[in-house]
C-alpha cells in the first residue's frame, strides 16, 4: 500500500528524512517561540495560542470565590482546571509550535495519558492528578473511596446534574483542621477584614495543619527563639491578636498585599527565608482547593 505513495523523483526525501526535517523545524519554531517569550514584560515569560474572546485572568483578580466558581464550571465541562492555568504541566501543547493551547473542544481530553471520564461513565478511578481537582461520575454511581467523602451536584448547563466527587479525599488531619479551626480562624479573619482562607493558609502552614504539639497555630516564638506552648489552640489565636501582625495585616484582602506585609519590614518580618511567602501562597491554594471538599462532606 505504501508503494502507491512513494515518491521516486530525484531529490525526494525518504520518510525518515521527512520526519527528521519536520522535527528540526518544530525545534526551530520552539526556539523562536522561546526567544519571543523572553521579550515579555512585567513578569511575562509564557506564550500561548489563544482565541479571540478568551479571557485572561491576572493573578490579582483570582479571588478564592472566583476560583471556586471557575473550578466548578471547568468540572461541569469535563475540563481539568489545571489545564487552564498558564505554566501548568497539564496545559495542552500545540505540537506544531510547542506552545500551550486552550482551544474550545475538550471532548475526550486526556492528560499525560491519564484518562478523564466523560459524562455517563459508570465509574472513575480516584485518579492521580497531582493537583487538587475533581473527577466526574454519573449520578448515583460514586466511589467515595471508603473515606466518607460525599459527592455533590454541580447544577446547570450544559449537563444536567453532574455528580462530582473529590478526586482524592482530604486526609483526616486536614478535615480535622477545618473542623476545629474554620470557625475561630474565620472569626479572626473577619476581625482583620481579610479573606478567611489567607488566615487558614498561614495557620495551616505554621501548625502543620493543626498538628503542632504546642497548640501554636501561628508558629509564634518567644524572645529566646523558643516556640510558645499554649494550653489550647484558641489561646494561640488570642496571642496572635496581641502581635503587630494582627494590626499590620488588617484589610489586606489582596493576596500580594497580604504577602508583602508578611515580609516587607526588614526588621519585623514574619519569616525571612526566601521561599516562605511562596510556601504560604501554596498553603492558601491548598485551602482554596480542600476547604470546599470538607464543606461538602459534612
Amino acid at each position: 500500500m505504501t508503494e502507491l505513495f512513494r515518491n521516486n523523483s530525484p531529490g525526494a526525501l525518504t520518510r525518515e528524512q521527512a520526519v527528521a526535517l519536520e522535527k528540526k523545524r518544530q525545534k526551530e519554531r520552539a526556539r523562536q517561540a522561546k526567544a519571543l517569550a523572553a521579550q515579555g514584560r512585567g513578569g511575562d515569560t509564557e506564550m500561548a495560542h489563544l482565541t479571540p474572546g478568551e479571557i485572561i485572568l491576572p493573578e490579582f483578580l483570582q479571588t478564592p470565590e472566583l476560583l471556586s466558581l471557575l473550578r466548578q464550571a471547568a468540572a461541569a465541562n469535563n475540563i481539568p482546571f489545571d489545564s487552564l492555568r498558564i505554566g501548568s504541566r497539564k496545559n495542552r501543547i500545540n505540537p506544531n509550535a510547542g506552545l500551550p493551547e486552550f482551544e474550545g473542544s475538550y471532548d475526550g481530553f486526556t492528560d499525560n495519558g491519564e484518562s478523564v471520564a466523560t459524562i455517563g461513565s459508570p465509574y472513575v478511578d480516584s485518579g492521580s492528578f497531582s493537583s487538587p481537582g475533581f473527577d466526574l461520575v454519573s449520578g448515583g454511581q460514586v466511589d467515595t473511596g471508603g473515606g466518607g467523602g460525599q459527592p455533590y451536584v454541580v447544577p446547570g448547563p450544559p449537563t444536567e446534574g453532574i455528580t462530582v466527587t473529590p478526586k482524592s479525599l482530604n486526609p483526616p488531619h486536614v478535615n480535622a483542621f477545618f473542623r476545629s479551626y474554620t470557625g475561630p480562624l474565620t472569626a479572626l479573619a473577619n476581625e482583620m477584614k481579610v479573606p478567611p482562607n489567607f488566615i487558614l493558609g498561614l495557620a495551616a502552614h505554621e501548625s502543620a495543619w493543626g498538628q503542632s504539639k504546642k497548640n501554636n497555630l501561628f508558629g509564634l516564638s518567644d524572645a529566646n527563639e523558643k516556640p510558645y506552648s499554649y494550653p489550647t489552640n484558641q489561646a494561640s489565636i488570642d496571642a496572635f491578636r496581641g502581635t503587630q501582625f494582627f494590626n499590620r495585616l488588617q484589610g489586606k484582602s489582596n493576596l500580594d498585599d497580604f504577602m508583602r506585609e508578611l515580609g516587607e519590614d526588614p526588621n519585623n518580618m514574619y519569616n525571612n527565608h526566601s521561599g516562605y511567602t511562596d510556601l504560604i501562597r501554596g498553603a492558601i491554594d491548598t485551602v482554596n482547593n480542600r476547604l470546599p471538599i470538607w464543606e461538602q462532606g459534612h
Partner: protein
Amino acid sequence: MRLAVLLGLFVVIWISQTIAADLGGKEPRPHWAPVELPYDFDRNNIRIEKLPDGFRVCSIANSYSSDLWFYVLLDREIGCENLKMGTSDDDKPDFVVIAPYLDTPLVVETLDDYIDYVGKPYCKSPRPASKDGGLGPSTAPVSIASAGTRIMGLNTVACTREDVAYDRYSKAFLAYRPDPAYKNGGRGYTVASYVHIKNKNAADELLEKVTSALKPLN
C-alpha cells in the same frame, strides 16, 4: 512629693511592661544568628550534624515563624550577623541552603510534585522573578538528573543551572518522603547551592558535605 509620685509612676510602668513581656506580650525581633551544630529540627524531622572545616550555618532567630531554613555560607570569614534582613537570595553571599519542607497535604504527594511545586526556583526554566524576593529571573536551561539517594537515603533528584547572564550557578538536591497514612503529612528536603559561577566547584563540594550532614531524627 511630685518627684516621688513621678518615680512611683515610672516604677508602675516598668513593672507592667515586664509582666506583659513575661506573658508573651513582647514582640519577637527576628535577626540572623549562627546555629550551633548538631541542631535538631523536630518540626521537619532532621538533625544537622557538625560540618567539617568550620563552615557557619545561619538561620533566622527570634522570628514569628517556626519554619526555618538554614544557610551555610561558602565564605567562612563572613559572620551571620553580616547578613541583611529582607534581602533577596541574589543579594546574599554565596551559600548552600538547607530548605526543609513540611507538607501542605495533597498539593505534594510525590517527588515529582515536590519538584514541580516547591522546587521551581531551582528546577524550572525559564524561571520568573520571585514575587517576594528569593531568586531572580533566569532563562538558562536546567539539567535534571537522578542523584541517587543522597538525602538521607531518599530518592534524590539534582537540578543544575548555570546562568552566564546573571553570573549565578545553582545545584539543588531534592527529596520527598510521602506518608501514605497521612498521619503526619509528607516531608520534603531541598539542599541547594546558589553561587557566583567562579565558585561552582567549591559549591559542589560544600553541597555534598552539607547533604551528608543531614540525618533523620527518627
